[in-house]
């Protein structure tokens, strides 16, 4: 996420896509949580994984 990314626009359009009707009260708090998630994601993405590494959800048929 670079400095020019418009996080408010992302939240507004994503919520519109999912039909979540955000209130003004919620908007700033959603932003705080998306920013936390973005920091977490940058930490995860900074780690170099083998592209053949498979996801780990536990499901056995």
């Amino acid at each position, binding site marked *: 996420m670079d400095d020019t990314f418009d996080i408010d626009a992302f939240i507004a359009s994503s919520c519109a896509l999912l039909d979540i009707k955000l209130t003004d009260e919620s908007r700033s708090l959603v932003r705080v949580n998306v920013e936390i998630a973005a920091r977490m994601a940058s930490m995860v993405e900074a780690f170099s994984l083998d592209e053949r590494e498979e996801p780990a959800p*536990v499901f056995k048929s």
Partner: protein
Amino acid sequence: MSDGFKDLAANEIATAVNGGVRSARSIVEASLAEIESQNPALNAFTTVLAERALARADSIDSRKAKGASLGPLAGVPFSVKNLYDVEGVTTLAGAKINADNAAAGADCTLVKKLEAADAVLVGCLNMGEYAYDFTGENAHFGPSRNPHDPNHMAGGSSGGSGTAVASGMTPLSLGSDTNGSIRVPSSFCGLFGLKPTYGRLSRSGTFPFVASFDHLGPFARSAKDLALAYDAMQGKDNGDHAQQNRPPELVAQTLDHGLAGLRIARATGYFAKGAEPVAFAAAETIMRALGSKQTIEIPEAERARAAGFLITMAEGGSLHLERLRTRLADFDPDVRERLIAGAILPASWIVQAQKFRRWYQAQVLKLFQHVDVIVAPATPCTAPMIGQKNMVLDGVEMAVRANIGLFTQPISFIGLPVAAVPVWLQQESLPIGVQIIAAPWREDIALRVAYALERSGAARAPVAKSAS
């Protein structure tokens, strides 16, 4: 009125009822009396099942009178987090929204299994909304209070499960643990708690949160009680796709095998920073009691926590998407925006987090070639005050709700079994927990160590004095 009931461990009750020293009815009546007396101040229960419990107790006494042998939990009152289905009770999962749902048509698997062992369900317990919580607070139903000081948090999300057992209302309770929700209330309320291996116990008939990480398990005031309950709950029931098809591996009979031969190390690095000194002092106390000075580094634990955080947000947001569309105003405000944010996260972040999870699991499993037990703090602090929003750890101010589980999340992220053990340090007015972490499917080792610590006095779980 309670006739010494409050201080009795579950195994002592079962021995007394099996031996004909006490009737199941007298025990259940004592438990109900404690609930009536203490619950108004502590707010652990959302439903009390007096009629059902007394009928069940009478049935046990009737079988005893006819000479039948009773189960290993004969007459033991227990309570369950209100995300467990109980026949005739609406499964709240801590949510006002769920109060509109129909009552459950049947008991969930684990309630059936405990009652098959002749335990007696006495009620359903308060919890953080939809289990997205480490505090035990709830905007709709009020906070579960810490029996050792009711101005402090019980911990969450299984807050009522901690409150009920630490106060002596029931000697045994069940909770769920996605990122720490058994281990955190165990730490704050000073209890023994077991989060088994992911896939060990059936989750069938319980309200989910994060399918990738959801676990169920017991709280008690002794390691032996955890073992008895855990043994009674093992076994495949086909209702949980994630449950592994393993035969029961009973642990109660191996509890007293001692520490000989166990390689024990304290987690360093991530687990040795970012907390109040009391958390590290508790872990050190446990290491001294175990006679080990060995340390071990769990690689990339902070990144594991970040990945777990993302998966939790996304799976939680997805689970509640329809409710976010239609019932937004009815969510607990402390939960709502976390779920909305989770619902809109880019999918590639989540897939990458799951890929990292696979890598991390492989690295951590290698550690168990060198150790049998890893010791780590359960929480970074003792129980915060109810209503406290922020805390300072290692000089950094952060939100309480999102960060109490920073030591538990990297462990449940890959489903390792953990026994939380309670430590009371001198000059501390509140307890704090330590995680006894074992390799997958080695709950027997975690509980053996917990039992040894209890026997040595290093870990103990007294009923709260304020509740005496």
